[in-house]
């Protein structure tokens, strides 16, 4: 889908496929506006962030899968909501802890309400990792 900002025009190649290892997205650096079509709910609101690397998304999926003890046949996509996967608050907190350890970052509690899906977790991780690298 195309979206226009004052400074750049960016395209996302395709919606997320269910196979997380073949992402149709391209990594575009610095600021951009992204419009992502989500199933059932039209467009997600605009955010100025970079899309997380596929490897990051994959690691998040692995941690989530382990924490929630999901059977292998359970499909896990970037859009997968933790609550829909059966995560309660303790699970979410443990997932965040697992992510902090894996990526050596620190997630503020205030941000944790923004982590409701795999994609949101991956995006936040990349933001924190980048911030840490710049510090």
């Amino acid at each position, binding site marked *: 889908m195309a979206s226009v900002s004052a400074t750049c025009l960016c395209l996302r190649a395709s919606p997320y496929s269910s196979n997380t290892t073949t992402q149709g997205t391209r990594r575009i650096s610095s600021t951009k506006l992204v419009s992502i079509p989500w199933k*059932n709910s039209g467009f997600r609101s605009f955010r100025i962030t970079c899309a997380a690397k596929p490897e990051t998304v994959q690691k998040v999926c692995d941690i989530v899968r382990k924490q929630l003890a999901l059977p292998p046949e359970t499909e896990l996509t970037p859009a997968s909501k933790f609550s829909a996967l059966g995560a309660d608050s303790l699970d*979410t907190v*443990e997932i965040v*802890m697992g992510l902090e350890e894996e990526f050596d970052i620190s997630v503020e509690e205030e941000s944790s309400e923004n982590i409701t899906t795999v994609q949101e977790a991956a995006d936040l991780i990349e933001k924190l990792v980048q911030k840490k690298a710049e510090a």
Partner: protein
Amino acid sequence: MMNIRCFQNNFSAASFPLVPVQLPSRMETHLWYVLPNEVKSMSLLSQYSELLSPCEKEDINCIRGDDLRKRALLARALVRTTIARYQINNQVNPSSLKFRKNAHGKPEVEWQDDDNLCPVPLHFNLSHTSSMIACGVTMNVAIGIDIEEKQRQLKNNVLAFSRRYFSPYEVKILTAISDPEIQHQEFIKLWTLKEAYVKALGRGFSGLPFKTFTIRSKPATTGSFNLSEDFVSKASEIIVESSDDPENLTNEWQFALLELAGSHYAAICMEKDKTVGGEANTPMKLTVWKTIPFIEDECVSGTDAVVAIGGLIKQ
């Protein structure tokens, strides 16, 4: 309290109404719980489905996995049927209830605004595990509940987890426990109490970081009531203190900690009703029902299914 047993059949919801219940009084909590493993009938589950709004049905359809879907369905059915029992404004149909989120994102009932009636001050809060779904109800005061399986395993080490999320005082208390099983139990109890508190406040985990407050027990002051067998034998009160301002005891919240159905810890946090006169340390009156909506309700207060383990509680 009536016990109603019947064979699960193709009764429609309308032909087997919910047993009505009186609203809780001030300083009283009602707790309703359902055990998903006891709900097996497909026709009953589809009756529950019929109670849901289109949005709720849609949300449930997005969930993968039969058990998870069933749990989500039972949670909505429990909330709707529980509130319908109180027959507020003569509204008895669970499927006609509307819900919304308040400014903090906490779910609440959106009462039909006929004749510009004041909103009914009924409060509720839901919690679930894989083997139990519970709904707490109060009048006039805010409520938060949290349940956890006693045997729930943590992926992380208890102390590492506590150091990351709990207050220094709480970490100290947990570290001092040498028996790992007891340490695990105390951790789960503390977690449920902290969760219940932030849910009562309506801010949730991210709205009020767990490190910013301490929950602990303190021996109750006897005040103006006489201790009797109704009360927890240790008669300890559970209190919450803000880490920023430990001298200022947040005396507005009352806690109860229970062992439920032998398998779960349940924490209830209820706002104290300031309009009720008398000693501030009045015990929380608690009534608990085990239910299979439309099929069976059993009042289990005072039985083995409800064991008070913390806070001042009167069953």
